[in-house]
């Protein structure tokens, strides 16, 4: 079964949001457009919209990520949905109850939308295949496979500052191998017509056959960010440092840390994105993080708007097809 079929109904409307893979440019643009009005909501005094009154959204996190969960929760609440937060640690589920049983149990509580985060690649697809037909699934990160809402908020941010994707040179720096975020970003950037997507990192942190993902590969930072319009930094997980893949954070910073000096290689008006949480002194120095080229704080608020857009789109599709 191709993932695109699973995500879309017969009229190309989103019923699940699992991956960028297989989605056309129009669908991505529709998501970005739908998020636009929601960015204004946060400026108003009454922040709630009555769009999803009476629906139940369940944050099903098998892999803790408090900030991400908060972002989804705020998005759901702004749409007036009821929110159920479930942190499930894996040993408990694999020991006693299968993932399918957990799902059936929660479905019985009349959940309309599951936001799923799971350490296994493909988990969101698996859940989408097994939920009742009227229920939506949004992937909030499945292993190293995909993190499509994060990628879409990054696209939203880029569009805000650069307007068009055509003509842009985007450089992604860091641990692509273990990053669903990077895979989703690469797919989204290419689908939206970005002129050149580059990835930069040590070979130990890049997947085999990286080029087949549709990117140019660089192992040297300055060379890679040369003339870049957008730089996206990836988070370096603690467990990757001091391993067989990497000697440590300091060495990483020496080779791939973004500093004001190195930033000279990029375009004057370059913007810098980071999915957070940042490791200052590893992925970038504080001057860059807090400097004029950073749009990292804006990403967080755009994240809520994008998630509001995707939640309302998927639930709307399911309500229309369900009836």
């Amino acid at each position, binding site marked *: 079964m191709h993932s695109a079929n699973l995500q879309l109904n017969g009229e190309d409307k989103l019923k699940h949001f699992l991956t960028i893979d297989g989605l056309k440019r129009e669908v991505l643009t529709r998501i970005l457009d739908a998020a636009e009005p929601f960015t204004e909501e946060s400026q108003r005094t009454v922040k709630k919209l009555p769009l999803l009154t009476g629906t139940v959204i369940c944050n099903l996190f098998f892999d803790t990520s408090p900030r991400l969960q908060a972002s989804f929760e705020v998005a759901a609440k702004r749409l007036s949905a009821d929110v159920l937060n479930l942190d499930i640690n894996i040993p408990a589920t694999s020991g006693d109850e299968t993932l399918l049983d957990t799902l059936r149990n929660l479905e019985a509580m009349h959940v309309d939308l599951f936001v799923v985060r799971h350490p*296994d690649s493909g988990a969101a697809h698996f859940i989408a295949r097994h939920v009742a037909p009227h229920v939506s699934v949004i992937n909030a990160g499945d292993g190293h*496979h995909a993190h499509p809402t994060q990628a879409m908020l990054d696209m939203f941010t880029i569009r805000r500052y650069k307007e068009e994707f055509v003509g842009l040179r985007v450089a992604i720096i860091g641990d692509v191998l273990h990053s669903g975020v990077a895979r989703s970003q690469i797919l989204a950037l290419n689908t939206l017509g970005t002129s050149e997507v580059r990835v930069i990192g040590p070979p130990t942190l890049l997947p085999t056959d990286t080029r087949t993902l549709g990117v140019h590969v660089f192992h040297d930072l300055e060379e890679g960010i040369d003339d870049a319009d957008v730089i996206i930094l990836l988070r370096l997980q603690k467990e990757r440092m001091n391993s067989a893949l990497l000697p440590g954070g300091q060495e990483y910073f020496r080779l791939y840390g973004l500093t004001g000096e190195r930033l000279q290689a990029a375009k004057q008006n370059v913007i810098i994105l980071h999915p957070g949480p940042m490791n200052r002194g590893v992925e970038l120095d504080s001057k860059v993080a807090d400097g004029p080229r950073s749009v990292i704080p804006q990403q967080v608020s755009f994240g809520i708007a994008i998630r509001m857009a995707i939640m309302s789109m998927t639930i709307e599709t399911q309500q229309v097809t369900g009836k």
Partner: protein
Amino acid sequence: MTTPRNLRIANGRLIDPANGIDETCDLYVTDGRIHAVGEPHAGFKPDLTINAEERIVCPGLVDLSARPREPGLEHKGTLRSESRAAAKGGITTFCCPPDTDPVIDTPAMAMLVRERTDGIGLARLLPLGALTQGLEGNRLSELAALQQAGCVALSNGEYPLANTRVERGVLEYASTLGMTVMLRPEDHHLRNNGCVHEGPIGSRLGLPGIPGAAETVAVARDLALAEYTGCRIHFRGLSTATSVPMLTQAHTQRLPVSADVAAHQLHLTEMDIEGFNSQCHVNPPLRSLLDRDTLRHGVSQGVIGAICSDHQPHEPDSKEAPFPSTQPGISALETLLPLTLKLVEERILTLSQAIARLTCGPADILGLPYGRLSIGSSADICIFDPEANWQLTARDLVSAGHNTPFLGWEFTGRVTHTLLEGRIVYDAG
């Protein structure tokens, strides 16, 4: 089951690669043994005649690796259910890896599985003894005792020996007993937590990969130790292109080394995992098209002497989870012959080669007297209709495990009768 004393299998096309026979003639069986080919001895009166007109009559298939799951994992399969599946697939002899629960590391366990299977009487099970106690890779099992209890070879199951000193020890010890050691060529550390081939598809899906080098490194290491110890080794389940020339080289050096490949590795590739298809989660993983084609070439050249089922039945729950959390393996006894015949259709193998890789090929690897229709040998016979077209459905499967990526595939060639020691153990009717 019918047990005729004198049996005539009439007018079939007899293909017995071990004896260089490929002709239309009768086959005669007396008291469970091959009595004559072509003309019977004077006074032979058949109690039963099987009309094999337009059928192929060949030796019963010999499978170097099939897991019946009993004892220990009866919710996945039992000796009875999987013996039935073997008989339906034309397989009369199969080797059972030692990773049962408890492990086959004692003579008592080896005898238990053999006797239980003999009692059922639908297929012949040959146990593989555990190389190390509990398959833990540290201490040798009582290999001589295992041999006496009927273990035809030794293996550490799916747990490759990580310690080369232990490996050297087991090979030296086994060589004095004249036993073959089956090795899963896989470097434990390079495998890490991988579940798919490390390649473009795995990279895109973000699934942890197992590099082809995990096999190359192990093959090189095992060959070096085989040469050093003089032990006869067999590579169980090759998956990469690079292994094939290494094996050819070893044959040139006259090292006592052999290899097999699972039938699914000759048909599927990494592309089949697309959409997180857990039915294609196997170990070793499905690799690239080049790997598949080189393995096919290796089989046709005879460098890889046997095709096996690598049968691993599962209950549905084992495959109902996100891909990395599913269990690897395919329920494969009933597709071993059809998948191999597909290689004949695709002109990779001649019919005689195909049958050889399923009969005398695997039997010779372990020095077994099966997989041939020599006069006096056990009347283990497979009769199939080479023209029958059929589609695999879950309802067809008699194995307890319905986990197969081949549901819906169309095949040509289907078993009509299977005989074990002259007894009809399967009759399609």
